[in-house]
């Protein structure tokens, strides 16, 4: 097997993780705008669940970034 095969496999995994992060980010942007609209309308009760869910989404993004970083590190060190 050539050296390129695992490299391409790693790239595919990274691409998949990137797509997931983009989806999570879109949800997070929507969440921020919805929470802000609620806050400006005087509904402050939406702030706590908004912050918690946003924190979970950020943690998921961080986990995926860590995965990308590890795949990158593993593949490029051979």
């Amino acid at each position, binding site marked *: 097997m050539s050296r*390129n095969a695992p*490299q391409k496999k*790693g*790239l595919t995994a*990274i*691409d998949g*993780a*990137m797509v997931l*992060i*983009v989806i*999570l*980010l879109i949800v*997070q*942007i929507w*969440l*921020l705008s919805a*929470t*802000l*609209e609620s*806050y*400006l*309308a*005087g509904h*402050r009760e939406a*702030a*706590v669940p*908004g*912050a918690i869910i*946003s*924190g979970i*989404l*950020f943690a998921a*993004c*961080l986990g*995926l*970034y*860590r995965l*990308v*970083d*590890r795949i*990158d*590190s*593993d*593949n*490029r*060190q051979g």
Partner: protein
Amino acid sequence: MSWFRKPSSTPLWRDEFSVHTVDERYVNRRQFTKFLTLTSFGMLVGNLWILARSAFHRAPVYPKLAVGSVDELAVGGVKIFAYPTADDPCILVRTAAESFVAYSQKCTHLSCAVYYEKEQNRLECPCHQGFFSITDGSVLQGPPQRALPRVALEKKNGQLVAIRMEGDGA
């Protein structure tokens, strides 16, 4: 000890500026993923800011302001005034003989001035065709997402007095 990557003997500058095309693809993707993750952190900070503002919210104290006399307006008549500060334009409408309503004149979409459309009996924003109910200020149609903040009024000795704002998120 690195939190993310395995310890490497390769210097950082060499790691980030690879001479191999395949390795460069990795660098590009990793950098882009890092950018996306930092953007996600920015969104979290935004949510935390809203949370902090909500947690440390204090109920504002509104002044009492005489808007005008009850007999000043005919039915369907409109008066513009400023409340609670000089920078907050409001609109007072006499909808019936004994019925007065007042709202913030700033559209909740992009702050254009709304006006009273007598024939349709609603408040309209001319900028993006946002329509609000004259009864409660709720959105009837158009891009605004929130109702118009309402000015609470009371009648005192034939005078209309603004006492507080309702639904302005303050």
